[in-house]
């Protein structure tokens, strides 16, 4: 801690039990070979805290040779006052699927970063990357050489495929209907070119969750959301049901009455499920994990289009394919994803996400382009107004 700046406001945020990011900024200066970066970051941040204004310029385009993304250029608007952060770019390292690490691997990441950057990181960025926070333009190439030679690559940024992300899935979860980590890794590898060389109309994100709990928020934060599900019957272990009851669970109130389709009943200590009516929402399974399990015919639901509110309001992803098998090498999934991206790439204006494009064009041209038939699962309810389009092909019937 160099103590270059007085930071009375930020120091307030070192109080209290939750770990303090202010302490982290102060600590970064200890180990980084460029302590002035974290120092000046702290100084500028203190200034922001007193003026209530940020001091960052719009990012310029910086990066590594042959790639168009992976680095977010960032410059202080007060380079004279805070020269240490005149350049303060972030580097997005593509995280391993499921965010698993060994201490050894993480140490190596830290060592390189202390050499070429501020010593500050985000574990992880909202998209999933291991974010390295603050370096200079000239350090980008050596940094990339060091990381890539050791098996690490950059993640996405700009109008490109973004770093796919997933839940912990089969690695540690009994409900995973698909191998979320393998799918995430496979898709990441499959789309390396699209990830590193922005050539899309805008960003395109993929997220994979093993079940409807959606622990990676795929349905809300991915252009392509892959969510595991099953087709057959929930597996019930009645002996375990009894144990839950014995342990004091109010099965009627907590499970049966909360089932959204009312397809369960609880009589004489046994749970019965009318599986044809089950929506596979995961409520009962998640609250009675020892007694109930997803079925055996597993696959994924494919949804498309979610994004943040800019420009036309937030979108959640829409069901496109209710059920698709997901087994390595995932050809069907890759193929579908390629078709989806192709249609979007062919039709979108710059800065138009796929959800916005579908809204603008309607579902039909999209579904026709990717070869998916209309199905009731794609809608909450059918259209309300009597205005609907007919194509020539409809008349031939």
């Amino acid at each position, binding site marked *: 801690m160099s103590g270059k700046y007085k930071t009375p406001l930020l120091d307030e945020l070192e109080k209290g039990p939750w770990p303090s990011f202010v302490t982290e900024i102060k600590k970064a200066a200890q180990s980084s070979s460029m302590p002035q970066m974290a120092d000046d970051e702290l100084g500028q941040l203190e200034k922001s805290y007193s003026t209530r204004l940020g001091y960052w310029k719009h990012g310029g385009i910086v990066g590594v040779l*042959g790639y168009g993304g992976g680095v977010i250029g960032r410059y202080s608007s007060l380079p004279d006052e805070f020269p240490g952060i005149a350049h303060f770019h972030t580097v997005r390292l593509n995280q391993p699927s499921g965010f698993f690490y060994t201490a050894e691997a993480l140490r190596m990441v830290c*060592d390189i970063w202390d050499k070429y950057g501020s010593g500050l990181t985000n574990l992880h960025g909202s998209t999933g990357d291991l974010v390295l926070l603050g370096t200079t333009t000239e350090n980008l190439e050596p940094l990339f050489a060091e990381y890539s030679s050791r098996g690490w690559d950059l993640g996405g940024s700009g109008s490109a495929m973004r770093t796919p992300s997933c839940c912990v899935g089969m690695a540690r979860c009994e409900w995973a209907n698909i191998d979320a980590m393998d799918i995430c890794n496979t898709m990441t590898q499959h789309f390396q070119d699209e990830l590193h060389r922005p050539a899309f109309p805008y960003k395109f994100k993929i997220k994979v969750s093993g079940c409807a709990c959606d622990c990676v928020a795929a349905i809300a934060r991915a252009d392509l959301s892959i969510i595991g599900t099953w087709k057959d019957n929930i597996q019930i272990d009645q002996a375990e049901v009894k144990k839950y009851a014995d342990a004091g669970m109010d099965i009627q109130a907590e499970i049966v009455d909360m089932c959204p389709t009312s397809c369960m009943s609880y009589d004489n200590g046994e749970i019965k499920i009318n599986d044809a009516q089950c929506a596979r929402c995961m409520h009962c399974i998640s609250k009675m994990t020892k007694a109930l399990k997803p079925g055996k015919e597993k696959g994924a639901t494919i949804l498309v289009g979610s994004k943040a509110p800019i420009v036309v309001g937030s979108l959640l992803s829409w069901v496109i394919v209710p059920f698709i098998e997901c087994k390595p090498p995932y050809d069907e999934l890759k193929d579908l994803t390629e078709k989806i991206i192709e249609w979007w790439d062919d039709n979108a204006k710059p800065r138009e996400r796929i959800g916005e494009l579908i809204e603008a064009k309607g579902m039909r041209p999209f579904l026709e382009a990717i070869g998916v038939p209309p199905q009731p699962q794609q809608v909450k309810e059918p259209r309300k107004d009597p205005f609907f389009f007919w194509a020539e092909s409809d008349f031939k019937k």
Partner: protein
Amino acid sequence: MSLPERKTDIGPPHYEQFLPPVIKNNYGKWKYHEVLSPGTMVHVAESGDEIYTVRVGSPRLLSTSSIREICDLAEKYCDGYLRFTTRNNIEFLVSDKSKVDPLVAELKEKKYSVGGIGPRVSNIIHTQGWVHCHSACTDASGIVKAIMDELYEYFTEKTLPNKVRIAVACCVNMCGAVHCSDIAVVAVHRKVPVVDDENVAKMCEIPTTVASCPTSAIRPNPKTKSITINEEKCMYCGNCFTVCPPIQIHNPEEDGVAIVVGGKIGSLRTSPKFSKLAIPFFYNDPPRWPKVVDAIKNILNVYAANARKHERVGEWVERVGWEEFFKLTGIEFTFQHIDDFTFMRDTLRTSAAFKF
């Protein structure tokens, strides 16, 4: 000091090399899990093998020094195996049951925040704020720290009706999951951007800038070769500023944050939901945003006191009705609460049945 040879398009390291042996052996064959304490759980495989998880809160913004300390602990108690969660918590993956308690003890001794598992408040998803983003209209990390300090016992001890997911976004780009969170803070502008005509003329493509406005508030101004903004129409979204930086949206006097509630992501019981506006505005009040923190605590408390077991914030509110939410929380209902953007039709009440 010659550099090693760079490689391209290799993608991330394969996750397999980072999996503890017990996970590799039981991959896809887990039978059930049990939450043992707010910060520990065990997953049991069909084989009978067990993996213990010890979860620890993280500020997400981590220094390499701190990461190394965490690595030290991982090596001491779990052969170096650890992971991070999708909400940025740290998870120690302990294969040896006997090491769980000592790990927890050392963590607590070192003031780590052990918790976040089960029906409680987990880590706050947040974004860059003044720490790194040019678009930031508030700081994210500071608000998060202030909230988590206040809700600390909901992370480490207390239970709630169900998980409560909190998020903070430092501008309406919403790089976090604010739009589908139980409770969230989003920074908002309230004044029409100020146009620096000279630089707009120099730096920006006028048609792109005009097209960037969702409410068609922007018109080209042939005289200045810049643009003009119709005050009546501007919703302060800042999209023009993203596309054309000399359209300056930041206004330290009148910027601040809104609180939204009732969103969720999982499809359990009820469909995923967007968050809805609870409180339209608080002034930025660094370093600890006390009114924001109080407001969130109030909402959380009212939820805890009124929701049924397993009900998420949004499920509770939908059951009792938003009329009731405003009554119970004592939050004032304003014009800002009434949608006049894309969801207006959905959200106006079209029923003669409601609560007074």
